[in-house]
């Protein structure tokens, strides 16, 4: 191939690649930048900011191209990357990585972009809780292929663990986090064990029952859980021991850093806290996926009998998937309890399980980025619909049906291999 032809092809791919980035930027930006809410005459009003969105997309497009050019100039992109481009299974891959990086950058910058807009940061925190839950359930449903309709039970276990330990024994957020994770994982194994031989619909029914059992125990065991009244005045998490409040017994976050106290600080702190937890979750799950245990999860999803013939202990594989998923839900539950300050069985109904499952299915089973997109969609769509609340669930349902018709495999159905053979046409 002559050098001009190579360059032409490079340009072609780069433009295509940048267009991909622009599309993703548009999708992400539409709800976050394109639409905003203001205080109007009659409560909150939705306003559009198309100009800002257009700028955002343009920046993503040009930024992506410039970055590629720079990398090319400094030979950071080795030739193998360009050679790998044409293979169909890899074209989507690079842009997915970039889209992921873009999402993380956006998430980190979000409180600065919307400084003072408490509503946006609060909603983003909710999105991140669902992202974390989605990533956890992704292990069970997306990777191991075990349809779990009672996932919210583990979320509840985490939330109540923190709620009870903090109000009765004065344990802090950071002490409760591992305890709740461990406890939720134990419950995961407890649920997993009797369901080992079940598949598909039958497994779904049993897990559904398990979710309801946990909720009913929470409702009826009034002495311990407070019954339907729940647990209130759960302490907020601290910043390395510094509480986020106006004044306290010792130093507070505001006094130590010489800031004027404002309630917004806590909102932003909680936002970053869940962001860190979610990113750690992502790191954990994507690492695990590439380890033997993660590959075994997927192998069990694909063909259990073949796994047994290969000498893989399917019991352990399934239990580890249940335990890992449950542990992550437990972490999310602790955060949820700490953020709300109040928990009751109301928060852990079947519809929560269904929402989390919808996030995983909508995002594309097993796809980490898909979960982010789906969680954003599922939290933000109902928020946007607040003005016409009667039709909100209807629109929500239609949106989900449309997505599943247009993209039956979920928003991102691309599966990334856990290992790649070196050399040949398929260099990573």
């Amino acid at each position, binding site marked *: 191939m002559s050098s001009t032809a190579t360059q032409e092809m490079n340009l072609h791919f780069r433009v295509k690649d940048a267009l991909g980035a622009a599309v993703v930027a548009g999708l992400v930006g539409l709800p976050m930048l394109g639409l905003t809410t203001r205080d109007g005459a009659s409560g909150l009003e939705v306003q559009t900011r198309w100009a800002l969105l257009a700028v955002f997309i343009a920046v993503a497009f040009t930024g992506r191209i410039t970055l590629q050019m720079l990398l090319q100039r400094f030979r950071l992109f080795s030739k193998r990357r360009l050679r790998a481009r044409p293979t169909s299974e890899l074209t989507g891959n690079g842009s997915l990585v970039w889209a992921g990086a873009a999402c993380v950058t956006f998430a980190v910058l979000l409180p600065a972009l919307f400084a003072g807009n408490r509503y946006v940061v609060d909603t983003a925190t909710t999105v991140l809780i669902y992202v974390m839950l989605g990533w956890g359930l992704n292990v069970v449903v997306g990777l191991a292929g075990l349809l779990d309709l009672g996932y919210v039970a583990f979320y509840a276990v985490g939330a109540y663990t923190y709620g009870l330990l903090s109000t009765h024994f004065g344990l802090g957020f950071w002490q409760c986090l591992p305890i709740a994770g461990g406890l939720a994982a134990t419950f995961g194994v407890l649920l997993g064990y009797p369901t080992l031989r079940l598949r598909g619909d039958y497994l779904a029914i049993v897990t559904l029952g398990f979710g309801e059992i946990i909720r009913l125990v929470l409702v009826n065991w009034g002495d311990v859980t407070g019954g339907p009244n729940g647990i209130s005045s759960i302490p907020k998490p601290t910043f390395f021991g510094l509480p986020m409040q106006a004044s306290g017994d010792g130093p507070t976050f505001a006094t130590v850093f010489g800031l004027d106290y404002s309630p917004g600080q806590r909102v932003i702190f909680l936002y970053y806290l869940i962001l860190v937890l979610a990113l750690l979750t992502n790191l954990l799950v994507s690492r695990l996926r590439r380890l033997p*245990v993660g*590959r075994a999860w*997927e192998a069990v999803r694909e063909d259990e009998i*073949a796994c047994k013939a290969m000498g893989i202990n399917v019991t352990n594989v399934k239990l580890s998937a249940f335990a890992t998923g449950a542990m992550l839900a437990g972490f999310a539950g602790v955060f949820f309890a700490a953020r709300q300050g109040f928990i009751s069985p109301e928060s852990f109904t079947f519809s929560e399980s269904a929402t989390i499952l919808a996030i995983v299915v909508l995002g594309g089973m097993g796809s980490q980025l898909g979960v982010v997109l789906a969680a954003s969609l599922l939290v933000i769509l109902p928020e946007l619909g607040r003005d016409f609340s009667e039709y909100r669930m209807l629109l929500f349902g239609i949106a989900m049906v449309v997505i599943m018709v247009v993209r039956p495999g979920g928003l991102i159905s691309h*599966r990334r*291999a856990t*290992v790649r053979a070196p050399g040949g046409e*398929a260099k990573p």
Partner: protein
Amino acid sequence: MNAAKPLLSVESLTMQFGGLRAIEDLSMTARAGEVTSVIGPNGAGKTTFFNCLTGFYKPTRGCVKLTHPHHGELRLDAMRNVHVARVGQVVRTFQNIRLFPRMTVLENLMIAQHNVLQEASRLSIAGMFRSKSYRRASEKAMENALTWLERLSVRDIANKPAGDMPYGVQRRVEIARAMCADPILLCLDEPAAGLNPRESAELTALLTALSREQGIGILLIEHDMSVVMKVSDHIVVLNHGKKIAEGPPSTIKANPDVISAYLGEDDETSSRHEAAQEKSAHA
């Protein structure tokens, strides 16, 4: 070879499903470094026999002994399928291909080495931090996988989803995957089904080479007689769950019972067959 104890010895194995006796009083042996074929018409109990060997079924009576180089004599009939594969190193393939379709060919081969890798990853903790021992183990596993990919000439599709490959290629990948699991006895259930004549010929050469070079025993269920006659050192013929003949290919080819079982009987053999059926009805 014949002097040593046989690798696998099956003694009066019976498998009964309710009123149906799928295998009746079957005894046979298979040796390391040899290909032993199990043939017979449809419904003769061949696949049931494999399921009994590999712990997928628990035999009603009889025993299956494996002479393992490290663990001594193992009773396969008393072991669960996972342990047959893991401890006994008896690896099987399936009549209908059972690859992990959405995973890549290379991933399929890595999963076959799951137990070694899982141990090296020390409950995933060492693996999570990419410890030296884990990295070494996974490099070795990768090397092993690549060797078998080359050997089965599927190296170029290593990164493609296994389920997207044509049938003949999937058959080869399945054998590569089985070999990655480090078997001492490889049980192949109709590996030539659906292959074209050229692919069958390649398979024949491969099986002979595998048994000779690796010194493993190969147990083969196959309908394609051109493959069976070329590759087998020893043939066991089943019909209605019973062994009707056993021996090297040359004698099996000439055996009138075998011919009648496959082709239906002519007048001479019909009386003998009726007698056999009567006997089975009594039993």
